[in-house]
């Protein structure tokens, strides 16, 4: 299986410079990126096995003595390539704010309480079907300094590897129906409505566990698809 990673597939990605998100103004390249072919250096990438994670790393509610406060949730889904084939054995890392919207990170000065029973970091390796599953609490919204009265919608940060260094993805998973969506320049840096919806998890009643936890589904599609004869002709 020789995957190709067409650049056109990145069409819905945010632009490097997206001025409504102010921090991009000084942190985006101003010169055109240099177009280069993919070589073995890009077509390969780190391979993590199941030894990268430990039992319990995927349950963020059991990392301390007691249970964290907040709404317990299951977040699960599949990691797929562009042909919708599962990507097995790939590392998925997450980090998030606690139920009050506060990160453990010491630079976070939001005056909401830390929870001694919640760190907010987790990781898992997908199974043979590309499936992953986390147990956590729903993160709170929190204010930030981008503009007057700016609040981030509830979100969980995701970091995923996939088949090559080109499929490497860092993104954020949002929750359905968030009233903050229209006001968030990070969410709206993805200008295509359909593409934005691919960052929003869906409520998954079927996999909710009665009397215990709500469930959200978030499938992640990474760069990479099977080469077609046309792709081969180009080389």
């Amino acid at each position: 299986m020789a995957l190709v990673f067409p650049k056109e597939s990145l069409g819905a990605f945010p632009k490097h410079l997206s001025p409504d998100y102010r921090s991009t103004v000084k942190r985006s390249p101003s010169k055109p990126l240099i177009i280069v072919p993919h070589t073995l250096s890009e077509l390969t990438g780190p391979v993590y096995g199941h030894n990268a994670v430990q039992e319990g790393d995927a349950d963020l509610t059991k990392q301390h003595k007691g249970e964290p406060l907040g709404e317990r949730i299951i977040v699960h889904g599949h990691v797929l390539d562009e042909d919708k084939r599962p990507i097995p054995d790939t590392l998925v890392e997450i980090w998030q704010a606690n139920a009050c919207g506060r990160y453990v990170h010491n630079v976070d000065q939001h005056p909401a309480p830390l929870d001694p029973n919640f760190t907010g970091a987790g990781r898992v390796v997908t199974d043979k079907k590309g499936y992953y599953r986390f147990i956590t609490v729903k993160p709170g919204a929190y204010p930030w300094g981008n503009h007057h009265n700016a609040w981030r919608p509830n979100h969980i940060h995701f970091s995923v590897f996939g088949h090559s260094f080109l499929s490497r993805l860092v993104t954020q998973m949002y929750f359905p129906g968030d009233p903050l969506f229209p006001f968030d320049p990070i969410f709206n840096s993805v200008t295509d409505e359909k593409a934005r919806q691919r960052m929003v998890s869906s409520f998954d009643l079927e996999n909710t566990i009665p009397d215990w936890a709500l469930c959200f589904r978030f499938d992640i599609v990474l760069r990479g698809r099977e080469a077609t004869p046309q792709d081969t002709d180009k080389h």
Partner: protein
Amino acid sequence: MSDITPSQTVGPFFAYGLAPHSRCDWKPSDTYDWKETAGANLVTPDASGTKVRIEGRVLDGDGMPINDAMLEIWQADAQGRYAHPRDSQTRPNTKFMGFGRSATDKNGVYSFDTIKPGPVPGPNGKAQAPHIVFCIFSRGMLRQIYTRLYFADEAANNSDPILTLVPQDRRGTLIAHKDMRGDLAVYRFDIRVQGDGETVFFDV
């Protein structure tokens, strides 16, 4: 039209999850108690080759240090082999993986300890000069940016199939220069995200 999941910024608070033992401004003692998946030291005891340190600063469009960036590197081993099934070269039975991750500190400084990579196969059967692929994430970056580090002391740079695609007057931004610190070769590689001397980034 592909329907891949769009990228979003890594944000300012990734360190406790992704780089818990790195140079983040973290208290107490600037590290965090979560096991590290990938760190800034790539050297395994069984890896052959020359140990080197890669060190530099990440600067924004005002020349100010970016103190909340995360850098990931991907490289071949000293014999030019990638630890990945797509590289058909026979690999020795070593644990050298070729992947590292470093956060920047309050001065925008990152560093990696690694093995100098060998030349690797390139397009049309031509070899590529030894290099390291960099992937940079930060608050204020909605998607990662890719660049490459080349070593100043490699004659093969002049014929490298990727480096020669870069306008001559900008190639210098991709060249790391060596400085001996005792017995250790330290290659200096600053990354200027924007503005004067802007580092070359690749559209891959």
